[in-house]
């Protein structure tokens, strides 16, 4: 497994404090943060315009399921880590992508992203 060093990771998270935490974790892990996107449209815009290696995606963005974001990412073969408070209840959403339960540690995030990147 590669390190996250230099990897461009999109964060999609509507809760700013959680987004900031994820951002800090990723920076500490040597990754480049894209976003964080705090709405579905922002996320889709970023996916369309930015070069992205992986995404940390919240299942629920401002009360809407973020399926459209997941579809856009999958369309571009970008690996996804689903960060969610639903736990394994998000399995149908994740469709095989990694799931990490909130709150997650830096180590857990690191491990999941590296695993997703292969």
């Amino acid at each position, binding site marked *: 497994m590669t390190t996250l060093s230099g990897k461009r990771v999109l964060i999609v998270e509507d809760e700013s404090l959680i987004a900031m935490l994820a951002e800090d974790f990723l920076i500490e892990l040597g990754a480049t943060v894209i976003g964080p996107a705090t709405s579905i449209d922002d996320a889709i815009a970023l996916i369309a315009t930015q070069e992205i290696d992986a995404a940390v995606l919240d299942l629920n963005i401002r009360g809407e399921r973020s399926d459209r974001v997941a579809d856009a990412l999958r369309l571009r073969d970008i690996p996804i880590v689903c960060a969610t408070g*639903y*736990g394994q209840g998000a399995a149908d959403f994740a469709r095989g992508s990694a799931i990490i339960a909130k*709150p997650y540690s830096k180590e857990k995030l690191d491990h999941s992203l590296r695993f997703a990147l292969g």
Partner: protein
Amino acid sequence: MQLGGGSDKLAERLDELSALYVLTDRLYRAKSSHEASEAGLDAIRDGLGCRRASMLLFDEAGVMRFVAWRGLSESYRKALEGHSPWAVGGRNADAIFVSDIAETDEPAAVKEMIAREGIVGLAFIPLTVQGEVVGKFMTYYERRHAFASHEIDLATTIARQIGFYLERTRAEQARKIAEEELRGSEQQFRLMSEHAPVMIWTCDALGKCTNLNMMLREFWGVETEDVPTFNWHPTIHPDDAAEIGARMMQALSTQTAASVQGRYRNRKGEYRVLLTTARPHFSASGIFRGLIGVNVDVTERDQADMAMRHSEERFRSAVEAAPSGMVMTDEDGRIVLVNLHAETLFGYGREEMVGQGIEMLVPDRSRSSHPVFRQGYGSFPQARPMGAGRDLYARRKDGKEVPVEIGLSPIQTSEGMMALASVVDISERRRSEAQRELLMAELNHRVKNTLAVVQGIAHQTFRGTQATDAHAAFEGRLMALSAAHNILTQTSWEHASLDQIVCDSLQIRGAFSNRVSTTGPAILLQPNQALSLALAFHELLTNAVKYGALSNDAGTISVEWFRTDEPKPRLKLVWSELGGPTVSSPTRRGFGSRLIERGLAADLEAEVAMEFQPQGLVCRIDAPLPEGILPQ
């Protein structure tokens, strides 16, 4: 008869008449056929002036035999017995008058035999009964005899009189035989019925008792001589009297069979249930003679029937009142019973369901496989839920399917093994379960998001400060709390298994997994217990990593627990560290110790002892377990 001219002739006529009167009188008084034959021969002699005469009758074999005679030798009788111009039962037989036997075509031997007896003229007069020849009488003359018409008339009249007599005696005999037979058969009937193991009675056409056999006399306590005056009506139970009376009256008046059941008081004053079957009986000539009846004591059977009916009624009303749809099927899967609930559930009226195959209530996709399951149940019937683990659906009349839960019970009945299915519509339950799951997921999501936000706040708060250890400790505790939440989420916050709490808490740091051993039975914890224990384990583990058995390369931790049930269920758990650096009691109690000692004590009502032994920390937790939650 014509009167002739001369006085001799007149005297002859008078003799003839007198002979006829005498004959009629004697035949009337005759007490035997011998007397009658003698009277006949006397009349022939006196009326016809004939010294020799005989009377013959066909015997049973149809041979003409002499029954009486005058002036005939034995050898003559022997030789001519059986000789008859008529066959037995012949009709329209005419008398034969022979003036001289020598002038007839009779065989020479017959002629010679007659001549040897000194007979020349003779007459054959048939004796008839109801027009059929039964015999004859003969008159014999030593000389050639020209038969005068009055002689012929007289002979015919005598023959007719004797015929009448024979007819009368034969009828009399037949009647006597019939009567004797009847008496015999009645005697036989009484004899047979007397000791029969059922109660048998006869009554006459008016319903009066004519015979009660021994068993019935004993039942009522009636002596044989009292039978003719015995009245059985007062022994009938007042509630049954009207019906039994009416049925018996009907049987008597319509001369038909009857069957009626009722209670009768026996000699001991107890009422017994008798089932009476009566048939009319008729004389040979078709006259109604009364009834012959048999009473069978069916008291026990009746009580058993009643008990069965009651229990069946109770069963039916229990089924009817059951709070779920009840459907009973026979061995062939035919519906035999449904209740009101089932009608509502399936949308069919009960008359539409009873008699039909149970498959009508099974969804199309399962219909073909259902009989196989049904037969499987039939070969191993026991009370159990249907379709273990599968979602079951029932098909309504309108074609809609409803999710159901079905419990099956075998019912042994007199008509074979039945299956009673209790069907509950669980649509509402399904909906509320789904609703609850949705709410639970939403709640979890919010709790987790809040924990993540707290994590974020802490992260921002500690950022740039020197309190790295404190930050790590805080985040560790937060993660431990979150991990315990995850476990509880899996069971919808109903319970958590201790084993899982222990393992998850201690394997947060997978590196130590082979240095931590856990042993204990499966125990289910309530949510608050699970959370408190998870936090406690986190503190213990953190402490072990920093200062205890996991702070060097050799130490190990053992976590052992068991359950005691007396007097009340309790959890006893021992955390013991071994092989770490030598332990000395800490001078100051940190948050970890306080959380364990005070937090657990408060949240679990537990007794917690922390023993800082030199070879390692030992923590004993003794906490009450909820009653009723058993390990699965």
